[in-house]
C-alpha cells in the first residue's frame, strides 16, 4: 500500500520538475554554481532476523546555490537536512536525482571527486570532531594547500597560512598555527575548520549547522564571518540550521524541510513574515523571541501542550507528511501529496490550502490557536 503511494508521489514529483524545466528555471545560464536536482536518498536498514526496511531520509529535494547568495535550509532534527548536505558533499551518492556543478552532472571517479572538492567544501557541525587532535593547525592548512595549490613552495604556503588565519581572525597567526586543537576553544576550532576549507579556494561552502555546537556568545561572530566570506569572496553558501533566528540574520533565501521533503521555499523576509505552509508557521512561532513577553507566550501556546513529533521516515504518513500534526488538515491531505504552488517572486509552498483557496486562514491564526480550535471541534475544519 505504502509502496504504491510512494510510486505515485515519485511520478508526481517527476512531473513537477519537468514543469519547472519547461519554464526554463534550471539552466547554467542563470548562474547556479551547485545544484541538487530532485535528489532522494534511501538508506536500507537491516533489522533483526534479516528484515530490511528503507529509511527515506530525503525525497525529491531540489537545492540551488548562486555565487554570493546564502540559502538557509531549515527543519527540525531528522528532517534530512544533514543527509542532503552530505549528498552535496559527496559522502553519499543520491539514490535518485543528480547533482550538478555549473550545470554539469558530477560523476564518481576519484579524479572528478577531487576536482569537485576543490570547489565544494563542507563545514561539519562538531568542531571538536572535525580536527585531528594529533595535528597542529599548521598541518591541517598545509595539507590543504599542498593538495590544492601544488605550485606554491614552502614559503608561499607559509604566507598563505598566515593570510588564511588572519582571514578568520585568528591573530597572531604564527601563534595559532603552532597550536594543537585541544588548545583552542570551540569557536577558534570552527574558524580553523573554515580556514582549512578556504585554503582549497572553493566556490561553495556547505555549513552543516556550523554554529550549533558553539557558545551562544560567539555565534554572532561566526555568522558575521560567514557573511563576510559571502560578501568579499562571492562564495555560495548553504547554511543548514534548525534555528530560524540565525537563518533570518544570515541568509537571503530560506528552504524548509519536513520529514525528508521540502515544503516551502522563498526569499527570507516573505517566508518569515508570511509563512505559506503550516509547518513553517509552527517553526517560526516556536522559535524563542525575546520581544514576546511571558504572558504572550502562554497565550500563544495555550491549549496546545502537544505539538506533535516528526513522523517515522521508514513508514511516512500517506498524503502530506505533515497532516497528522496539521491543524488545517483536510481529506485531501490524508490521501494525496499536495502540489507545488508558485506564489510569485520565487516563493513556493506545497500545501493543499493554496489549491483549496484557504490560504487566508494561515495568516489569520497562530498554529497553537488553530490546534486548540481543532481539538475543540474534531474534524470541524474539513
Amino acid at each position, binding site marked *: 500500500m505504502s509502496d504504491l503511494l510512494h510510486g505515485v508521489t515519485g511520478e508526481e514529483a517527476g512531473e513537477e520538475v519537468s514543469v519547472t524545466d519547461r519554464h526554463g528555471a534550471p539552466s547554467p545560464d542563470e548562474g547556479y554554481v551547485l545544484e541538487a536536482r530532485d535528489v532522494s536518498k534511501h538508506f536500507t536498514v537491516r533489522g533483526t532476523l534479516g528484515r530490511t526496511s528503507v529509511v527515506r531520509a530525503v525525497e525529491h529535494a531540489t537545492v540551488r546555490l548562486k555565487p554570493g547568495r546564502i540559502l538557509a535550509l531549515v527543519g527540525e532534527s531528522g528532517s534530512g537536512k544533514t543527509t542532503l548536505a552530505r549528498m552535496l*558533499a559527496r*559522502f553519499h551518492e543520491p539514490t535518485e536525482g543528480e547533482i550538478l556543478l555549473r550545470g554539469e552532472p558530477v560523476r564518481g571517479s576519484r579524479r572528478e571527486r577531487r576536482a569537485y572538492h576543490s570547489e565544494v567544501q563542507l563545514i561539519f557541525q*562538531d568542531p571538536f570532531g572535525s580536527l585531528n587532535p594529533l595535528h597542529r593547525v599548521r598541518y591541517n592548512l598545509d*595539507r590543504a594547500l599542498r593538495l590544492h595549490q601544488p605550485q606554491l613552495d614552502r614559503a608561499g604556503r607559509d604566507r598563505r597560512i598566515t593570510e588564511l588565519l588572519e582571514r578568520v581572525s585568528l591573530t597572531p597567526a604564527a601563534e595559532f598555527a603552532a597550536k594543537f586543537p585541544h588548545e583552542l576553544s570551540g569557536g577558534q576550532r570552527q574558524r580553523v*575548520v573554515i580556514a582549512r576549507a578556504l585554503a*582549497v579556494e572553493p566556490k561553495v561552502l556547505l555549513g552543516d549547522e556550523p554554529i550549533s555546537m558553539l557558545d551562544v556568545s560567539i555565534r554572532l561572530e561566526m555568522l558575521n564571518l560567514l557573511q563576510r566570506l559571502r560578501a568579499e569572496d562571492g562564495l555560495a553558501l548553504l547554511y543548514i540550521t534548525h534555528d530560524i533566528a540565525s537563518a533570518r540574520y544570515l541568509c537571503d533565501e530560506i528552504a524548509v524541510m519536513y520529514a525528508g521533503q521540502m515544503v516551502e521555499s522563498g526569499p527570507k523576509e516573505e517566508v518569515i513574515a508570511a509563512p505559506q505552509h503550516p509547518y513553517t508557521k509552527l517553526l517560526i512561532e516556536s522559535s524563542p523571541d525575546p520581544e514576546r513577553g511571558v504572558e504572550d507566550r502562554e497565550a500563544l501556546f495555550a491549549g496546545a501542550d502537544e505539538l506533535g513529533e516528526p513522523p517515522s521516515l521508514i513508514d511516512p504518513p500517506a498524503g502530506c507528511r505533515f497532516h497528522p500534526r496539521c491543524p488545517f488538515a483536510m481529506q485531501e491531505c490524508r490521501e494525496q501529496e499536495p502540489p507545488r504552488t508558485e506564489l510569485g517572486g520565487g516563493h513556493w509552498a506545497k500545501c493543499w490550502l493554496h489549491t483549496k483557496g484557504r490560504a487566508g486562514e494561515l495568516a489569520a491564526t497562530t498554529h497553537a490557536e488553530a490546534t486548540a480550535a481543532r481539538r475543540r471541534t474534531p474534524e470541524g475544519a474539513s
Partner: protein
Amino acid sequence: MSTGFLASWKVRTGLAVLTFFMLLALLGPWLTELLGLDPRANDTSAIAQPPGGEHLLGTDQFGQDVLAQVVAGARGSMYVGLVGALVGTAMAILVGVPAGYYGGRVDGALNFLTNLFLVLPVLPLILIVAGYLQGTGLTTIALIIGFFGWSGGARTLRAQALSIAHRDFVRAMRMLGEKGRRLVFFEVLPHLTGLIASMFLHAMIGAVMAEAGLAFLGISDSSAISWGTMIQSAQQQSAVLRGLWWWFVPPGLCIALIGTAAALVNFGVDELANPKLRAARPVSVRRAKRLARAAATTGGGSR
C-alpha cells in the same frame, strides 16, 4: 606528556629492568670476556658446583659457567623477543589497520585471514613448521613466532581503526583530497600508537616465552645459547631432581623479570591512553586528605 609518563614508578622500574637486559644483550660478549668467562668452556674440575668461589653462579653438569651462560643467553632471548615482536606487530598493523579503515571487500578478505590465523593451533603448527625447516637458528625461530602470533593484535587494531575511520576529521581530510594511504598512516595510525606500543611489549614477552617454550620442547639450535636452551638442558639432566637449582633458576628468573618489566611499562602506557587510570598527583592527594580531616573535625565538634 612524556614527563607524566616517566613520573610513574611502575614505568620507571619497568624501563630500568628492560634497559638493563638490553644492555646485557648488547654488551654480553664484552662483559663475559672482561670477567674472563666463556659460556662454552667446560671446566672439568668443577662440575655441577653450587654458586660461590670461582664460578659466581655455579656451574652446570658440563662444567659450564652459569653466569656466563645467562649473560650469553640474554642476547639470544632478547633477539628472539625483539624480532618476533617486530614481525608480529608489523603484520598486525599491516593487516588490521587497512581492514578497519577500508572496510567492505578488503575488510572481508583481511578479516578472513585474521580469523584463520586466530583459530590455527599455533603451537603444534610451529612444531611442524620448525621441524620442516631444518636447522632452526634463532632468526628462524623469531620469524616463526612473529608470523604465527599477529592475529589477536590485528583483531584489536581493526576494531580501533574501524571506529576512527568514521570520525569527522578523517572525513574532512578525505574531502580535502587526501589519498587513502596517507589517511591510514597519518590520520588513523597515530591514534593507535599507545595500543601498538603496548601490543609490542606484550608480543615481546610472548616471543621470549615462546622461544623458551620451544627450546624446552627441543626445537632450537643446539649450538645457540638462550635462556630457553639453558632450561631445556637443565631439564634433560634432571637438575630439579638433583637439586641443581642454580642451573635453572637464573634463566627462569630473567624471563619472569622481563615479563614483569614489560607489564609495568604497559601499565604506564595504559594510564597515558586512559586518564581515569592515572594515579592522583601527590598535591591533590594531600589536599584531599586535608579536606577529609577538616570535615572529620568539624563533624566531631558539632556532635
